């Protein structure tokens, strides 16, 4: 037995000695920095749990700097639209797929088959096989005017000051949240991956010229969890859920307003409707006044 171990060690040492390629191989930046996002990551949904796991309710656009156009789209969005046969196979778009539900991630390295250099990452575990590829080899993004858009967009990454910065373009028309808040195909998403020991946080910064008044900034955190198993699930396929005419497009009438969240929280619907003004601390005073008015109105109603 001892002899066999010695033989194996000797073989391995000789292999390294006589294979200069393995020894001389240039380490990528991630390896030099000791920073690598490959592995199994369990989502820590300690922030925005309600939005990310059960999903935001109708009319809840809190914390999203949407404009009037986006609000109209969200208010008239009918969840039944996901029953369209041509939508049943949709995964979550890149603008949302790392937000929820959870998701636990498996991040694999993509190695150049000839040089073994790290040229990208592939992420798995997102809803509906919304797998993403992050290229690290400096390739260019597709044509801005005429390139194909995909659910996962086109992502390239670079390391800067110990942070992996991923830029994603060419995303499809998607959502920022699962209650119909629209994301245009012309947005640019920049994601910042930090690793801090066993924790990894990603801060996403999305600019959208069509639907956002200012950049949407959100953060997600994962913890390294090597025993976790995230398999490549089968992609969704279409089935006949309900009988409908071809060309069926469900939507709420123009002017619809969803009061569900406002009523639940006891604040005016203007506060749950999002917009950049609702993002800042100064808005707390407005909220306080709204709550007072709500309580006063409620008291009057109860007296009557």
């Amino acid at each position, binding site marked *: 037995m001892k002899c066999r171990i010695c033989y194996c060690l000797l073989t391995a040492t000789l292999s390294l000695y006589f294979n200069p390629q393995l020894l001389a191989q240039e380490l990528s930046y991630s390896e030099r920095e000791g920073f690598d996002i490959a592995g199994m990551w*369990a989502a*820590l949904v*300690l922030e925005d749990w309600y939005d990310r796991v059960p999903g935001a309710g109708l009319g809840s656009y809190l914390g999203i700097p949407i404009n*009037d*156009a*986006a609000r*109209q*789209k969200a208010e*008239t969005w009918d969840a039944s639209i996901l029953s*369209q046969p*041509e*939508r*049943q*196979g*949709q*995964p979550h778009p890149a603008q949302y797929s790392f937000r929820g539900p959870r998701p636990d991630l498996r991040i694999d390295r993509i190695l150049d088959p000839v040089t073994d250099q790290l040229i990208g990452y592939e992420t798995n575990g997102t809803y509906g*096989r919304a797998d993403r590829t992050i290229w690290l080899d400096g390739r260019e*993004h597709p*044509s*801005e*005017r*005429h*390139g*194909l*858009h*995909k*659910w996962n967009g086109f992502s390239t990454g670079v390391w800067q*000051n110990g*942070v992996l*910065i991923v*830029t994603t*373009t060419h995303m*499809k*028309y998607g959502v920022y949240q699962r209650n119909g808040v*629209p994301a*245009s195909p*012309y*947005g*640019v998403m*920049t994601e*910042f991956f*930090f690793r*801090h020991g066993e*924790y990894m*946080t990603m*801060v996403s*910064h999305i600019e959208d*010229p*069509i*639907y956002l008044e200012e950049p949407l900034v959100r*953060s997600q*955190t994962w913890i390294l969890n090597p025993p976790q198993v995230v398999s490549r699930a089968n*992609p*969704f396929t279409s089935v006949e859920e309900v009988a409908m005419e*071809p*060309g069926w*497009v469900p*939507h709420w*009438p*123009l002017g619809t307003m969803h009061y569900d969240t406002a009523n639940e929280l006891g604040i005016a619907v203007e506060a749950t409707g999002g917009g950049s003004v609702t993002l800042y601390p100064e808005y707390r005073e407005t909220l306080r006044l709204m709550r007072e008015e709500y309580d006063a109105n409620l008291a009057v109603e109860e007296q009557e």
Partner: protein
Amino acid sequence: MIYSTKKITSFLLASLVLIGSLIQTTQAQRPEPLAPDTDEIEVLPVQGSIHMIATGGSNIAVQTGEMGVLIVDAGNLEASENVLSAIRGLSNRPLSQLINTTILPGHIAGNQILHPAGIGPPIVGMPIFGHTNGLTILASSDLGSLLPYEFWPNSTFFGEDRTLNFNSEGIDMMHVPAAITGGDIMVYFRDSDVLVTGPMFDITGYPKFRPELGGSLQGVIDGLNRIINITIPEFNQQGGTLVIPGHGRIASESDVVEYRDMVTIIRDRVQYMLDEGKSLDDVIAARPALEYDGLYSGESWTTEMFLEAVYDELR
């Protein structure tokens, strides 16, 4: 597994401070379409034997193979020389077939350069396929005066479709009744699995249907539903059949679905307001296309123009 909220929060705050100095984003913007009279072009591989050449007039599909080159649409005249050079860069085989999906000038003006460069029988030259309704419209409208007669479609069909096998690939030319005009067709390359929609699907703007040329909103909606029926995504509602629109980027089925939904929703909203007795001014003031304006409103075909056209058809 042990973790603490405090630890994560402090880490997050430190991280947020750091990224402030790192944000250097690519500019997010809706790309400007190519100008209708520019000579600028862009060449992109699509899949199979198909390339797309984008021009300001229209997108062009080019199928290459041993038998020669087949071209769908010809773009604007100003770009034609560049288009011809680009085709020469893709294949040294003869230009053998030309298909016009419509008779709108942006799609057929380039016939004047591409047709003489092709091969075909004496006098007639390279076949130019199209629908007979288009030929009728050319002959009976002002559009005919914009293009010399010898460059009009010279191999037309009356019925619902016409098929062709070229470069060992089945090609289906399908009439789309009363869409942008009354003479529009789509072209489907079976082996390459690429559908060329013509003007009916223009991802850069609202559909500019032309009632005076036999077009209609309902025809556009029917045509878009037909595209969705033909296209089959490969995986995750993308890939599979790729779509070359009249203008703008290469697309897959889900892009057509978004566009079809947009047109249908606006149609329904305007119809609802009409049923309530609203005037055109009322309809425009209600902004029934607000969420789509940033995506599709253009300088030459504004939201108001589109809503007026929708209103006129539905009333």
